[in-house]
């Protein structure tokens, strides 16, 4: 056998996986095994049905012992999926885990090609490159880095709340950062929740209070993460706390300041009530808000002018606050720096912007509402105290609910938002209860696949709510007949009856779909995540790693990953918390040993590598005038290696010699 690294004979075992028929149907695996068997240094070459299975892994271990193998190559799926599995198998077989290389012939070959000969030829070339490469591999050691036990949860909707509480209850310190003045997210706006119709506030408020009171949770509302550095186990995060002009520690939530404000009546549109209600410049977003701390809106407060302090108001609020001295007009934004080991991103969703579908008349006809607005209208603590009073001052006698607004539509969003059928039916039920109006649902398909959901649909049918199957073409006030006069006419093709219908109603509700936040791309960059094509954050694996991201130590929960209902958001939040706990309780993470080092003898001290490193891991040893790489700071990108003019920097696992041998292996002519 050849001596490749000069230290010992290289004896390679090669395994090509059939993956059932996933690979074998398009790649002639036997031909590949036969071809590789004849390559230099190869001692064993086999094909096997499922290499990742226990017997597959045992096969490798048995061969290592029996044939004295010291290098292993597996040609199977993506290394991003199973490299770790096989490294562990190789290690269990008694070898250094890095005497292993994985060749991707599934995602990059059998699944994407249609000609068996071509796919087989490609598999042979890839395998050959792997064989050439692995011969040069060196034994490497995995470094263990401690994991900081504190956790950051970003977003305080139901998902963030649940994740934070789960972690706090297991004794971990949690920072919960919420952008809005209060936690609660969308759920805080709902009156009832499907399919059980239990009151949202009754199930959410206790959890919110628990967050506010828990000694292990530091709640920073009205705050945003502005910077994140570091890596799994050791993140350094900067949080910007926006000024509320009220000192959180001193405010008791008595709201005296609100009643004493110079504005006797609420005057400014209230975002929490979807602008259907009004608030004062000093306000608390909603009665159960957590933290129970008021805030002052400098855009409208008389003591400011366009956000700049003028101090021109009489400030009866300060007087009302009295000795508590909680109001501080000079409060500035604050930057807090924290260290955490793991991060859970739970930033939720926004609803579809109905302005993108002008044919439904939102903004043009006052009696067209979004679903979120109706959630507030039917809410006992909403702007109308639960009275469904239209913008034109009437009570509706007929209501049309249009499903799939901004969902399942190639002109807007293609995905199904998963909750709209159910919340539309919930709103249908609640509106009927509140108004006794005739209710029409316009749907494409009813999607009710959760526990108790189909039964809820049945219940609605029994309640006499009408269901008309068809995508609504238009909402118009153009009356054709006297009955349509003064009404909103919904034009729709009833696809079950096969006729185009015009249905006059008093109120239209648009069941808007769920989309990623407008700033999702920024948040993604901030936390080094990926987004899917729709813009929701991408999980590491759709089935097997649904709450992991591609960045270790950063997890996802709730609707920021994809539209889902509350039960699923909570389940995912629990899963994300459990993933964080795994890291914290293990206490350390194993770092891929792909860092770079300088071969001092060859370094000329030219310093060209130093400014290239984004992590300032490289410095010049002053006495020796040689570059030096701090391994703890190096993240293993290899940029300095590629740029070193004297070739004196080496990246472990990606050595020049390894890559050159891969190139040569790929391009060598195949002769079988």
């Amino acid at each position, binding site marked *: 056998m050849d001596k490749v690294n000069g230290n010992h004979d290289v004896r390679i075992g090669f395994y090509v996986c059939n993956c059932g028929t996933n690979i074998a149907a398009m790649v002639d695996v036997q031909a590949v095994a036969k071809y590789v068997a004849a390559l230099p240094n190869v001692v064993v070459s086999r094909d096997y049905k499922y290499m990742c299975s226990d017997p597959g892994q045992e096969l490798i271990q048995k061969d290592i012992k029996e044939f004295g193998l010291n290098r292993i190559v597996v040609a199977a799926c*993506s290394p991003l999926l199973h490299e770790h599995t096989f490294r562990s198998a190789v290690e269990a077989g008694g070898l250094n885990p890095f005497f292993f290389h994985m060749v991707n012939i599934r995602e*990059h070959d059998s*699944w*994407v090609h249609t*000609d068996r000969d071509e796919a087989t030829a490609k598999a042979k070339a890839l395998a050959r490159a792997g064989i050439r490469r692995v011969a040069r591999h060196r034994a490497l050691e995995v470094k263990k880095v401690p994991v900081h036990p504190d956790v950051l949860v970003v977003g305080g909707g139901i998902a963030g709340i649940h994740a934070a509480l789960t972690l706090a209850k297991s004794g971990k310190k949690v920072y919960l950062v919420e952008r809005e003045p209060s936690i609660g997210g969308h759920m805080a706006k709902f009156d009832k929740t499907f399919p059980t119709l239990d009151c949202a506030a009754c199930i959410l408020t206790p959890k919110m209070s628990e967050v506010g009171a828990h000694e292990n949770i530091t709640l920073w509302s009205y705050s945003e993460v502005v910077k994140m550095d570091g890596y799994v186990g050791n993140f350094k995060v900067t949080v910007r706390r926006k000024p509320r002009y009220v000192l959180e520690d001193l405010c008791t939530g008595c709201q005296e300041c609100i009643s004493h404000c110079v504005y006797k009546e609420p005057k400014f549109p209230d975002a929490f009530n979807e602008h259907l209600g009004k608030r004062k410049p000093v306000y608390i977003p909603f009665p159960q808000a957590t933290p129970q701390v008021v805030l002052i809106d400098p855009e409208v407060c008389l003591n400011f002018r366009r956000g700049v302090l003028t101090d021109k108001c009489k400030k009866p609020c300060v007087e009302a606050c009295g000795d508590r001295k909680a109001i501080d007009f000079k409060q500035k934004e604050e930057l807090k720096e924290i260290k955490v080991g793991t991060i859970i991103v739970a930033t939720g969703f926004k609803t579809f912007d109905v302005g993108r579908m002008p044919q439904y008349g939102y903004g043009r006809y006052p009696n067209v509402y979004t679903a979120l607005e109706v959630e507030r209208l039917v809410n006992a603590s909403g702007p109308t105290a639960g009275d469904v009073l239209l913008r034109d001052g009437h009570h509706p006698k007929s209501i049309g609910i249009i499903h799939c607004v901004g969902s399942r539509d190639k002109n807007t969003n293609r995905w199904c938002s998963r909750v709209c059928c159910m919340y539309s039916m919930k709103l249908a039920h609640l509106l009927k209860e509140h108004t006794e109006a005739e209710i029409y649902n316009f749907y494409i398909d009813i999607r009710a696949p959760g526990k108790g959901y189909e039964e809820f649909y049945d219940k609605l049918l029994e309640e006499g709510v009408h269901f008309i199957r068809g995508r609504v073409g238009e909402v118009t006030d153009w009356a054709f007949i006297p009955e349509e006069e003064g009404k909103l006419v919904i034009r729709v093709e009833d696809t079950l009856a096969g006729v185009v219908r015009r249905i006059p109603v008093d109120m239209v509700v648009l069941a808007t779909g769920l989309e990623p936040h407008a700033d999702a791309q920024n948040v993604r960059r901030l936390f080094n995540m990926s*987004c899917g094509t729709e813009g929701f954050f991408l999980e590491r694996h759709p089935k097997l790693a649904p709450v992991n991201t591609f960045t270790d130590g950063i997890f996802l929960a709730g609707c920021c990953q994809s539209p889902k209902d509350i039960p699923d958001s909570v389940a995912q939040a629990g899963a994300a918390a459990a993933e964080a706990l795994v890291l914290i309780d293990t206490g350390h993470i194993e770092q891929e040993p792909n860092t770079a080092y300088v071969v001092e003898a060859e370094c000329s001290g030219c310093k060209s590598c130093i400014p290239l490193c984004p992590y300032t891991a490289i410095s010049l040893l002053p006495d020796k005038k040689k570059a030096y790489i701090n391994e703890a700071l190096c993240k293993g990108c290899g940029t300095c290696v590629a740029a070193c003019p004297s070739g004196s920097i080496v990246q472990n696992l990606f050595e020049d010699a390894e890559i050159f041998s*891969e190139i040569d292996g*790929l*391009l060598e002519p195949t002769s079988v």
Partner: protein
Amino acid sequence: MENETPPTSGNGSWSPRIIAFFCNWCTYTAADLAGVSRLKYAANTRTIRLMCSGRVDPQFILEAFAKGADGVLIGGCHPNDCHYAEGNYKMLRRFQLLKRMLKDLGIAEERFRLEWISAAEGEKVKSVINDMVKKITALGPLDLPGKVADWDREMTEPAPAVESAPVETEVAHA
């Protein structure tokens, strides 16, 4: 199964061989996604996984061409999205320089390509590879090893003429 023989022009079964260097975080993952989504594309690329496109040493590209590649494709994260902050910019700078140098060697621009492909863009992996294969097929084989051998021969034999012939550049016929 003989279609991996070294490319020769005039041979009807010739099809280009392209070496691809994909960064682990974006483009390699995108290629995995193309696989999971069962997209179909030309079987002419062979991918080498690197942690970052910033790791791509110009020598890798020269080596690939010297060993008979008809094209080299580099895939990295979009600007601002690099997992390592700015490795892709470093690659971009090298790419610009290298492109000029390859042109001087008589290697057509279409044979050397840098693409930003995010982890979500499986479709782009497919379209970029298909497009590159189409363009290089139109150009025909590069056969740099053959050319280098010719050049070596010229160097050892006494030069017959005084004037040095200009470097021949390729023209695509697509």
